[in-house]
């Protein structure tokens, strides 16, 4: 076979569920060493295609026809036994939910070894050496010990690397990765993708990366395939795709990336000021304290959006809930419209609360399944009327006839719109948006971001926008606060934080951020400002700066002196003495 021939050649591939063609006449090639991104909205058929490339289909679907040639051999024409032998050896799969894909009864080393022994003729000791070697290549420190760990003993990021080791172990020529980083934090996501691209380039294998995240595509993929309703609607080189998308779906998605920054608020008046907010949870059994929120200071102006970012477990959600007293803070002040909400008796608070509303992450969970949409929205109205409900539904872009439906019958995006309608029905001055777009498809996310911006323009309310998705934060926020282990480590305007972060943690977070922009691709540059090691346990926090054990510019005093938020002349604040001194 000539060297320049594609490793994977798919022709006319179709999968049907009854009369519905989930994958419809799909054809494409992947060349050696190439990473191809496959994107499309939820339900477009990406995952069915990914699984189908291994000759697998979920019941009651079936493969209608076509060919899947790996290095010239059509997988679909082989007998089942032969096809099974080639799965894993020639074509590997990495799925979502790494921990769920590992057996809880076996150590990760055993699981990697069983793959190696199934496909390669090697002895037990060789397999053992090889599996440890694979883990070392994937950047796990102390791989001998890690190989003896059970899946529940390792972090999600490590579990994902074990899955790569299993998928890559037998050296397959084609690797299919289906949303391999969904649910991972940005820093771990970047690490994982760095390793995946490095490993595949070294081996010269072909990678098909299924993802809804355009940032991943822009930063790692050579080419892009776009799926819509089971068909491939676009195929393009990555740079050209982002410069001039050819199809309707991609144009709508990319339109969000080109949104201008939100217009600045009309006044400089402060609406909400938080001082020294702290909250610790007592852990059951051990009697240990988990410091979820640690002396947090925040201020939000009238009509302003403050983006609150940080990785999972950084305490962002707890901050939002403490403001609304859905969680009782241990100490600190929450000044809102001239009152300290943290000290207001609950009876008085009930009246005040309407001025502060919240939209939750899980759109279905936020709506009573037994109630109609109309009743849900009217719950927030003091004098409910059919006309007002219709007006509110129209305001959030829903048809007034939606009022008679129940939440279960709506799409996730529409459910989130109902939550927003309920929140604005109470006429709030501030809405806490707790990851409102995380559970949505990319298109629905575009819709919600656009809606939130237009509602703010119209009614001038403030938002506290809590999210781990830096792209969305950039499109909504006037100012941004970064949290790490319960503390705010940096606050500044969007431009300050995104363009020139000061705190070493913000720098690492933003370095791992994958923007949907092909000008400075991560795959082409040396990864910088990465943090070493693992996040300390919030149960057992260090004495000095919480980042000291991982910080690239750590100085001796950092390890012993707790850091305070220092306010700088340019309006920003940073919890790092060396960075503030610069």
């Amino acid at each position: 076979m000539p060297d320049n021939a594609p490793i994977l050649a798919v022709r006319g591939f179709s999968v049907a569920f009854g009369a519905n063609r989930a994958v419809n006449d799909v054809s494409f090639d992947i060349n050696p060493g190439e990473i191809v991104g496959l994107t499309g909205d939820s339900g477009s058929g990406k995952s069915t295609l990914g699984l189908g490339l291994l000759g697998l289909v979920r019941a009651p679907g079936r493969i209608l026809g076509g060919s899947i040639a790996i290095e010239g051999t059509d997988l679909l024409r082989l007998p089942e036994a032969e096809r099974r032998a080639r799965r894993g050896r020639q074509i590997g799969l990495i799925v979502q939910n790494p921990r769920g894909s590992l057996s809880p009864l076996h150590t990760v080393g055993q699981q990697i070894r069983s793959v190696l022994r199934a496909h390669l003729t090697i002895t037990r000791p060789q397999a053992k050496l090889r599996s440890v070697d694979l883990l070392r290549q994937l950047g796990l420190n102390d791989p001998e010990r890690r190989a003896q760990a059970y899946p529940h003993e390792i972090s999600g990021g490590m579990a994902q690397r074990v899955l790569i080791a299993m998928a890559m172990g037998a050296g397959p020529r084609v690797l299919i990765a289906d949303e391999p980083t969904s649910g991972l934090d940005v820093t771990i996501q970047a690490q994982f993708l760095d390793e995946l691209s490095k490993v595949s380039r070294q081996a010269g294998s072909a990678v098909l990366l299924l993802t809804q995240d355009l940032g991943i595509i822009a930063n790692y993929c050579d080419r892009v395939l776009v799926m819509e309703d089971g068909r491939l609607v676009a195929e393009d080189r990555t740079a050209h795709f982002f410069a001039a998308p050819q199809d309707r779906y991609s144009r709508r998605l990319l339109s969000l990336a080109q949104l201008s920054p939100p217009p600045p608020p009309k006044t400089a008046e402060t609406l909400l000021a938080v001082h020294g907010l702290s909250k610790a949870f007592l852990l059951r059994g051990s009697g240990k304290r988990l410091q979820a929120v640690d002396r947090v200071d925040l201020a939000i102006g009238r009509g302003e959006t403050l983006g609150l970012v940080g990785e999972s477990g950084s305490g962002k959600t707890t901050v939002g809930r403490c403001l609304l007293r859905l969680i009782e803070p241990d100490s600190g002040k929450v000044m809102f419209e001239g009152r300290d909400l943290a000290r207001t008796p609950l009876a008085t608070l009930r009246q005040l609360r309407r001025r502060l509303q919240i939209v939750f992450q899980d759109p279905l969970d936020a709506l009573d399944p037994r109630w109609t949409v109309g009743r849900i929205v009217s719950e927030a109205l003091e004098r409910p009327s059919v006309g007002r409900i219709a007006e509110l539904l129209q305001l959030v872009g829903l048809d007034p006839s939606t009022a008679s439906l129940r939440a279960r019958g709506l799409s996730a995006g529409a459910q989130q719109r109902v939550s927003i309608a309920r929140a604005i029905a109470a006429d709030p001055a501030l809405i806490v948006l707790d990851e409102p777009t995380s559970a949505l498809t990319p298109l629905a996310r575009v819709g919600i971001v656009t809606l939130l911006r237009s509602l703010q323009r119209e009614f001038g309310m403030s938002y506290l926008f809590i999210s781990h998705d830096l792209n969305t934060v950039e499109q909504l926020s006037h100012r941004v606060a970064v949290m790490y282990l319960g503390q705010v480590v940096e606050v500044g305007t969007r431009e300050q934080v995104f363009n020139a972060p000061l705190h070493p943690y913000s720098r690492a977070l933003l370095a791992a951020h994958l923007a949907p922009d092909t000008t400075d691709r991560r795959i082409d540059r040396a990864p910088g400002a990465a943090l070493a090691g693992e996040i300390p346990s919030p149960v057992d926090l260090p004495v000095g700066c919480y980042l000291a054990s991982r910080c690239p510019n750590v100085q001796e005093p950092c390890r012993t002196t707790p850091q305070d938020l220092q306010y700088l002349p340019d309006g920003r604040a940073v919890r790092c003495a060396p960075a503030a001194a610069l």
Partner: protein
Amino acid sequence: MSESAEIDTALLQADFDAQLARPVSNTLFHVGAAIVALSLLLMVIGPWLTPYDIGRPSDEIMQPPPSLSQVPGLVRQMLAGAPHPAIHWLGTDSAGLDVFSRVLAAPRADVSIAVGANLFSLLVGSLLGLFAGTARPWVGGLTMRISDLVQAFPVFITGMILVTLAGRSNGTIVVTLALLYTPIYIRLTRSEVLTQRHRGFVDAARVLGKSEGWIALHHVLPNALAPAMIQASVTIGFAILMTAGLSFVGAGVRPPTPEWGLMIAAGADGIVQGEWWPSVFPGIAISITVFGYAAFGNGLERRHAR
């Protein structure tokens, strides 16, 4: 063979099995629903459908049911309207009472006691469960310990004590069974309340300034009731069995009321002499009914989970 591929095919197989299993469970659900409907119907009109007087003894003592080979001939005679000797389809008992008539009339006692006891327990249990789930932790804990205590008491002993104290009546059995089942509903409702109180729509209502009591009644309780309602269907079936059991040991329905447990007890002595029919047919009736309620409850649960 790749392990990951192997796991995947296993998953696919499980998926496939689920698809296959669905029609079977649907059939069971419909059979169960039919049995439940029939038992409720017989509870209301059963005593009026009986071909013979259920209370008046006759001379035809211990007549066996017709053998299977005789049945077609008897049916033809009946359909032709020709004069025929009195047929006891399921035989007669030692007092000369028609077993078939009494089996038909028994749901009036058995089903109404079981349904009544469960409606009572469901009402009291779900309200107490709501209380235990929303009150301060120690109050909730105390409620649960008391309900444990009630549940730990052997039901037959409770039944006999109550019969001694209050006499043998249908009301006594309803109270006995209600005491037995209320803790089940308390526990189910409480655990569901504990989950529901932290749902997003509950927090949203708090933020809208609604009081905790209003939220408990409008959001938490209605959403917490489903498991208890599903449980009720299964429990009613077992309550029928328990009613028959209590009657069997003499702590239940007063004879000569037609009741399955009493019929089994009355016919039990004859079984050793080969006179099986006065006991076996009511036994079969109990089995079918309990199975029907269980299948119906099981189907409801599957539908709810989907």
